[in-house]
């Protein structure tokens, strides 16, 4: 019977039980640790990315605000220049003379603006009734008194109500993004100055925004069109990004309702591969600024910590294997001695004594065997005496 029982069965069972207990616990705890540290690191990265996006949005808004400020500055100069009030020695009193002097001063101011702000390509003056009185252009002939009617145009209506008007982005020459900025003129906002701004110039700002080593920032308008990117070629291609998951998510997320929603996503980057993308809105313009960083780069610090955890896990598993083997051996060895001793007693070696010093039930069992053998030996001796 005893030969049929596989010799290592018990040993293997013990090893397996110990290993599953020790190693399994270790593995589970390590994986839980890795998972949570991944989540923590990710939320930290998202926070950083989001801050970067907010900073980039501020830079770009400042850039647009600066152009707005320059355009506003021109309107103030035009209406409050002492030189226009008293044009060189000429007799005042004729309304016409004053108007002509004002118009000339305005033209000079517009010319100065074109020199100072390369992004502005056209600047025009709309009178009280919304008719264009002056247009100074970088590319086309200047127009004086063209009288084109803009009284129903949003740029006139909104600016007349006292606010700065930012038009939706439009494209010129097939591919260059432009925007109209219209500002009210003078204290009572009866007239309007409108400037056409070539948004190619945002390139200077966007290409200086650094996001780690391989990251970059870009801007999409309210319709999801790319309007600024460090690679100007992508902008000039008139890329429509409204289908990108990060753009779609950002556009559906209304400012204010964002709450604790995920403000950054892992999505296919604009330049291939997976990227960590965060965004921030430029509310007055309806634009969204995205900041993207390649995933491999963003998660590089995390990679080291995960590798460390894995190495420790492997060491732990190795140790637990060794410990299981030693433990199992200590459990199994006395049983084997018992087994061997019992077998010898069974074959008639009644003077055999089993030596187990484990101080537990196994030692008690061995002692039982020994006393059983002793009693058997004694009763055999009695029987022999009686037969004799």
């Amino acid at each position: 019977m005893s030969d049929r029982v596989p010799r290592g069965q018990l040993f293997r069972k013990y090893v397996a039980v110990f290993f599953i207990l020790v190693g399994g616990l270790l593995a589970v705890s390590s994986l839980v640790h890795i998972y949570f540290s991944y989540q923590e690191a990710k939320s930290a990265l998202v926070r950083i990315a989001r801050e970067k996006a907010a900073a980039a949005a501020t830079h770009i808004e400042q850039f647009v605000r600066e152009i707005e400020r320059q355009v506003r500055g021109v309107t103030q100069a035009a209406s409050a220049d002492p030189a226009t009030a008293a044009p060189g020695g000429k007799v005042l009193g004729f309304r016409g003379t004053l108007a002509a002097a004002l118009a000339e001063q305005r033209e000079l101011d517009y010319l100065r603006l074109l020199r100072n702000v390369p992004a502005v390509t056209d600047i025009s003056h709309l009178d009280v009734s919304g008719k264009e009185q002056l247009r100074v252009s970088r590319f086309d002939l200047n127009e004086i008194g063209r009288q084109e009617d803009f009284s129903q145009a949003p740029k006139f209506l909104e600016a007349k109500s006292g606010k700065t008007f930012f038009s939706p982005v439009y494209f010129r020459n097939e591919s260059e993004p432009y925007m109209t900025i219209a500002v009210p003129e003078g204290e009572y906002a009866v007239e309007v100055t409108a400037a056409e701004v070539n948004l190619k110039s945002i390139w200077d700002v966007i290409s200086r925004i650094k996001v780690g080593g391989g990251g970059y920032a870009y801007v999409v308008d309210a319709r999801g069109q790319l309007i600024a990117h460090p690679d100007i070629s992508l902008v000039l291609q008139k890329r429509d990004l409204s289908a990108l998951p990060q753009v779609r998510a950002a556009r559906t997320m209304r400012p204010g309702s964002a709450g604790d929603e995920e403000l950054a996503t892992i999505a296919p980057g604009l330049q291939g591969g997976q990227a960590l993308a965060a965004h921030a809105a430029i509310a007055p313009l309806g634009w969204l600024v995205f900041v993207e960083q390649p995933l491999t780069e963003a998660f590089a610090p995390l990679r080291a910590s995960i590798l460390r955890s894995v190495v420790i896990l492997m060491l732990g598993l190795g140790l637990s294997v060794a410990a299981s083997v030693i433990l199992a051996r200590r459990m199994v060895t006395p049983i084997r001695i018992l087994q061997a001793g019992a077998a010898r007693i069974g074959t008639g070696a009644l003077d055999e004594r089993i030596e187990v010093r484990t101080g537990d039930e196994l030692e008690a069992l061995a002692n039982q065997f020994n006393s059983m053998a002793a009693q058997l030996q004694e009763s055999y001796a009695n029987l022999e005496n009686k037969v004799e």
Partner: protein
Amino acid sequence: MSYVWVVLVALLGVAPFTAEAQEARRPHRIGVLNEAWAANHPTVEGLKEGLRDLGLEEGREVTFDIRFTEGKPEATPAAAAALMKAGVDVIFTSQEAATQAAKDATQKIPIVFTLVGDPIAAGIVRQLARPEGNLTGVSSLSTRLVPKRLEILKTLAPGIRRVWFIYYAGDSTTMAMTVRALEAASRLKLDLLPKGVATSEELARVLQQIRRGDALFAPEVSTLDIPAAILEVSLLSRSPAVFPSALWVGHGGLVSYGPDYRAQGVQAARLVEKVLRGIRPHDLPVEGADKIDLAVNLKTAALLGVAVPRKILLRADTFRR
């Protein structure tokens, strides 16, 4: 959260060996083709500067094979063919004739052009946002700026009536330019005389007809060295002349309105660098020149007896004294 595992697997995976890890490769060869009179044309200098800023050092990452044909239109196709034979990686051209010659010579090697006034009218690309074929580049917007140049000429010298518009007859954008120029001239109450010349003799004949009080309009295309001839006549006959670029104002021209040549080279360097990285010209939109400058030579103005008005003084980006 399914991407968590994607990320974990990606993080544990061995970092892929990128192309940059390869051993140092031979420098890219950039062929340069133009009708200049020397190898150091401002666009080429701009290109070198731009590439240096992008980390491509001459001699190490890039080498230049420069062919210039000294204003001789008949020599350009042969120079283009020679560049093909030399086996360059990209061709950098300036002006239309050279660009056309390069385009005729190859449909495979990418071409990046500069100083092309109107790439569509010239038939060099069919659209700007997605140029088809193997060409892209920087448009100098010359055709667009024709009316503006006439306006500036008139502002500077309000007394002028007749304006000579002398250009190389083989220039394929002439039609578009002339139409715009005539239209603008009539609005500015100027009498525009467009004259296409095909040879140096013709040019000399036309220049002899210029009288005192006439004004001159210099083309961007330097074939037959027309802008230089106009500059000379302008100074000799005290006739106001407008030029397409500040380069000519530096040489004594009265006024110029247009993009800087060197700046266009710098701008085109970005496109060249992308082409060398393997991006197809098809995916690189033609760019308009970034900055349009008004330059005035005050010394020439004094010589010509022109009083520079405030409208020009306030607008001008650069002055020569």
